[in-house]
């Protein structure tokens, strides 16, 4: 080991070989191949892609066929809605956990929030499916008020269930960033004459914002790519559904080309999030 001591460059290379090799080569390599597929021709009958047969057909259909734009907009709007919903629900509970609950309650609440996060995703979607579907508990609750159940074909189902699924992803980073705010800052604020409202708006909110952004990375990207939930609780199509459908049926190049959209959105999102300091709160 002595010989390695002065050679920090070599140490570094040894350390990074694995992780960079894995992500840089395997992961980025896979993304690159997917990207290439977007520019390749496929056989219209067997569906096989012919490598290195360059064409822009996939992009052409993406641009000319209206429905892809509709779906993209719908998905992004849904991602924004879900993110906003989760932020609104998550902030009070995160605030309560970080600043009001006793140490014991806080511990219990952290567990209470973590558990549904770790509980099977499909189990939760499925549970909602059973709740929403006809003759399910929701209809049963609504019936006495003369309101019909939504059934399994409402787009609002997707909004509800996705908001539910990703809620813990929003609560925890906000909680973590709220907890990191030193108590003395809040004391200083009230000492300087700020009432609770001002303190919240001027001190707490700006300092918790990176946590919100960190949480939104999850809520946003998970919504952007999910196709199972929309499939199971509604019959509305999202970006994920189109990619998924085309990856097996239709056209892999089209799926690959369409994939570039969420990839581009998320890369921009991440760059902005990093600037806002959200990575520290992840």
């Amino acid at each position, binding site marked *: 080991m002595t010989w390695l001591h002065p050679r920090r460059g070599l140490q*570094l290379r040894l350390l990074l070989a694995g992780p960079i090799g*894995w*992500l840089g080569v395997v992961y980025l390599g896979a993304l690159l191949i997917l990207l290439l597929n977007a520019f390749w021709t496929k056989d219209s009958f067997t569906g096989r892609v012919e490598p290195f047969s360059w064409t822009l057909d996939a992009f052409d259909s993406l641009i000319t066929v209206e429905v892809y734009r509709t779906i993209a907009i719908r998905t992004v709007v849904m991602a924004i809605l879900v993110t906003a919903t989760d932020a609104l629900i998550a902030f009070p509970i995160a605030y309560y956990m970080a600043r009001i609950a006793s140490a014991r309650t806080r511990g219990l609440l952290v567990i209470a929030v973590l*558990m549904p996060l770790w509980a099977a995703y499909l189990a939760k979607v499925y549970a909602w499916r059973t709740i929403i579907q006809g003759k399910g508990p929701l209809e049963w609750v609504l019936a006495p008020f003369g309101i019909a159940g939504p059934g399994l074909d409402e787009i609002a189902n997707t909004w509800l269930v996705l908001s539910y699924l990703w809620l813990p992803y929003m609560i925890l980073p906000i909680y973590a960033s709220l907890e990191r705010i030193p108590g003395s800052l809040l004391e200083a604020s009230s000492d300087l004459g700020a009432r609770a409202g001002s303190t919240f708006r001027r001190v707490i909110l700006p300092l918790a914002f990176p946590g919100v952004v960190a949480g939104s990375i999850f809520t946003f990207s*998970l919504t952007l790519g999910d196709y199972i939930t929309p499939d199971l609780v509604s019959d509305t199509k999202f970006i994920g559904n189109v990619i998924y459908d085309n990856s097996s049926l239709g056209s892999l190049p089209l*799926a690959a080309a369409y994939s570039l959209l969420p990839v581009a959105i998320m890369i921009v999102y991440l760059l902005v999030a990093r600037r806002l300091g959200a990575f520290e709160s992840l």
Partner: protein
Amino acid sequence: MVESRAVRIALRIATALAVSFLYMPLVILAIYAFNPSRLLVWPPTGFTLGWFGEAAANPAVIRAVINSLLAGALATSIALVLGTLAAYAVQRYRFFGRESISFLLVLPIALPGVVTGIALRTTFTTFGVDFGLMTIVIGHATFCVVIVYNNVIARLRRLPRSPEEASADLGADAATTFRRITLPGMRTALLSGGLLAFALSFDEVIVTIFTAGPGTQTIPMWIYQAIGRPTELPVVNVVALVLVLLSVIPVWLAQRIAGGEAASLSR
């Protein structure tokens, strides 16, 4: 002491509502698990434990659980190694491109699973890689690395350098220092990161569907398939309920190990 009483009460109510919202579907799931009817109708028509027996005797479920455990364990191991190495390099060294590494690591978890899944499958197909447990593991490890990485780097940030220097100063070489000082310092971070990575792998369905081979159905894949078959629904109820209940174990463990730290999603 900044919040007024009214605000505190309002927050308490909001918290109670949010927690109920989080648990309501799980409770419904639990109720259905004891409902004798094969089709899901509300309110429940009776009480039975029969579906538990069916689930336990279902070889597909058992095989799927074993596959999930295997895939999770392998992916977690890879993620632990790679995530720790990356975190150590980024935290303890200065180099060009350091900032981009965290970016590269978050990418697999921030990009939609469909994209990762298709990209991996297309690549595997292109290079003639046989689909099987190993391809699932590769897919899972890719997005698990960042979880370990974030846990470990957060710990390293808080872990002072000086004990490592003290160790070298006291005569320990780099390997000894890493084993006796750095690693114990990171132990809880590794454990909670590992648990989280495992949980994520255990629960992952989209990437799994794209990277699975024959005979490597995992439990989420099984559930997904079974949801499509009405005849299996009662068993799905039971399996889902058991999975939810089992998730208490890692959460509890992580909380115990890391105290409040596990709260950081750590990704």
